[in-house]
């Protein structure tokens, strides 16, 4: 029987090395029964898009704390479209000013999780989206 688990790529784009959040989320999603691949640090949008294709993931979770989201997110969304990965759900977690949220959603980011979000809220969001 094929593995029906939701496949998630947790990625840490940009130069920032603060990976506490990325690692906590990776572990929480794994404990919730998802198949989680963590890219490690300093991934360019190209690297993330390629990993998403290669791993054939349902969800990409980006952890961004550095303020580079307005540059990184649109680049990644464009690359995903070019690679035919339109159906992948892209989530962002981190420090995102509220004023930037509408434009990020416009670019195709499905949801943005701000500091203080419980891991359960993220698990619920993903599971609802991929409920059989």
């Amino acid at each position, binding site marked *: 029987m094929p593995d029906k688990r939701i496949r998630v790529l947790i990625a840490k784009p940009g*130069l920032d090395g603060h990976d*506490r959040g990325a690692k*906590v989320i990776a572990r929480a999603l794994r404990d919730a029964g998802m198949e989680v691949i963590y890219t490690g640090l300093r991934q360019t949008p190209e690297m993330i898009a390629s990993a998403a294709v290669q791993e054939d993931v349902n969800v990409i979770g980006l952890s961004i704390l550095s303020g580079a989201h307005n540059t990184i997110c649109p680049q990644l969304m464009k690359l995903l479209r070019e690679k035919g990965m339109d159906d992948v759900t892209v989530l962002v977690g981190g420090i995102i000013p509220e004023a930037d949220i509408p434009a990020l959603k416009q670019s195709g980011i499905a949801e943005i999780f701000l*500091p203080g979000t419980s891991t359960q809220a993220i698990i619920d969001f993903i599971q609802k989206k991929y409920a059989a």
Partner: protein
Amino acid sequence: MSDSTKAKTLAPATSISPERKPSSEEKSWETNILAPALAKAPERQKQFTTLSGHPIRRLYTDADLTNWDSKTQLAHPGEPPYTRGIHATMHRGRLWTMRQFAGFGTAEDTNERFRYLLAHGQTGLSTAFDLPTLMGYDSDHPLSEGEVGKCGVAISSLADMEVLFDRIPLSEVTTSMTINSPAPVIWAMYLAVAEKQGADWKQIAGTLQNDILKEYIAQKEYIYPPEPSMRLVIDTFEFAVKHTPKFNPISISGYHIREAGSTAIQELAFTLRDGMEYVEWALRRGMQIDDFAPQLSFFFNAHSDFFEEIAKYRAARRIWFKAVSERYGAKNPRTWALRFHSQTAGCSLTAQQPFNNVVRTALQALSAVLGGTQSLHTNSLDEAWALPTEFAATIALRTQQIIAHETGVTNTVDPLGGSYFVEALTNEVEAGAWDYIRKIDAMGGMVAAIERSYPQREIAEASYRYQLALDKKEKIMVGVNDFVSDERPLEILQIDETVAHRQHVRLKKLRADRSQSEVDRALLVLKRAAETYNASTASSNGHLSHENLMPHIYSAVKAYATLGEICDAMRTVFGTYEETAIT
């Protein structure tokens, strides 16, 4: 005192122990007062723990200090083991340095903020660099896109550094610089500005963070592999001892370890074991402990669990004294005394109801002051959203001034000394840290422990445990998982892409105006010197011998080689580091 009795009296005491022997008065209190009270009204929780999950007893009494000797474990301020502080008069003599970390945008933007903070009573500078600078990339490198000037100030060359410290006399102000892998380069830029201003290197004072070990452990802003990185750190030690006796070439940092989710004990243990690792590498270089170790400084997190933090600072001084005197035979009291900077916990701040952060920060700062800090940064209320606005940064500075001048806590030295609870907790935190330190010793030291991801894994475990405790509401964050309410969004500082554009223009001009042949020559000399090192060239006495790179980095900086060019020269020789990602 003979060596064996000394070792015995200095051994860490543990007080949560099965052999705790309460006095007959305490037993009678338990029977006659406590038991009926508990029968009538049970306590709110089955178990009480610190923020780090360390168990806390209902009541501490003399029974918790039976193995504790006030003469050897407490002593007096300014004398070993420095539990009560490193100076005889502590904050009665001199207040801690109020050192607010600042940096954003271009060098002009940050220079303006620096001069604003100095004008408002700040007593030392502290520089935050942007991510490209921290990673050794120029502002116009492709990987810098979107990151220029965002998390700190963009510094790509000496020309930027000259602007950063324009109209700030480096002979009068002390400066801390939060820079690690590229620390020798940024320090060389600072020294070049000092020289241009006519400041005497022997007199200038400040601190370079330069703590690469905690980068591998926690913050992950590393460039080169551990061995050449450690070489560069020891090069700065040598250079500092010789040329800048008042400058701390390193700030051995627990701050980032704690921010990554460690417990207080892990923060303490990993930081002090890092300190020992640097000492051991410097000794292997042939340096003498009492020549360089007085210039080592430390940096701790001031987190939210008030007494646990105070115990941590007190235990830190005790551990360092024991380590340098017993392990390395230090004889100089300036080597024995652990000096530290502290910063309130960024990770404790909430994006929700951000004005509550002023209160958190004030209480955290108070713990650092009561723990005997030498300098302090208080976070701004908006830092869960962005770098601070001037408004928020001013309140943060005022918080320190209120503690210093209104609360009265500076009137006496170590007011908590002798408290059953504080002394017992200090003992426990110390004992817990020594357990970790001995484990890392057994692995062959901190570099070896890092290579097998030991501290990284311990921190990830602790951080996950804490997140689960929050999710289950076993630990409460006000405004986040309890006491939630609606609020208005905050006005925050936005850094736009014009900063990157201004940096691109400036770098283009720099590259056009400088002597390229001079730059090429300086970089070539640096590369040759970098190549002189490999472990197999250890000399017969076991000391690692190679050329100190600081003078060559300084020459390259003076020729206006950029940060990226200098770091690239070393990248080609040393290679770069990739960690094994653990989740």
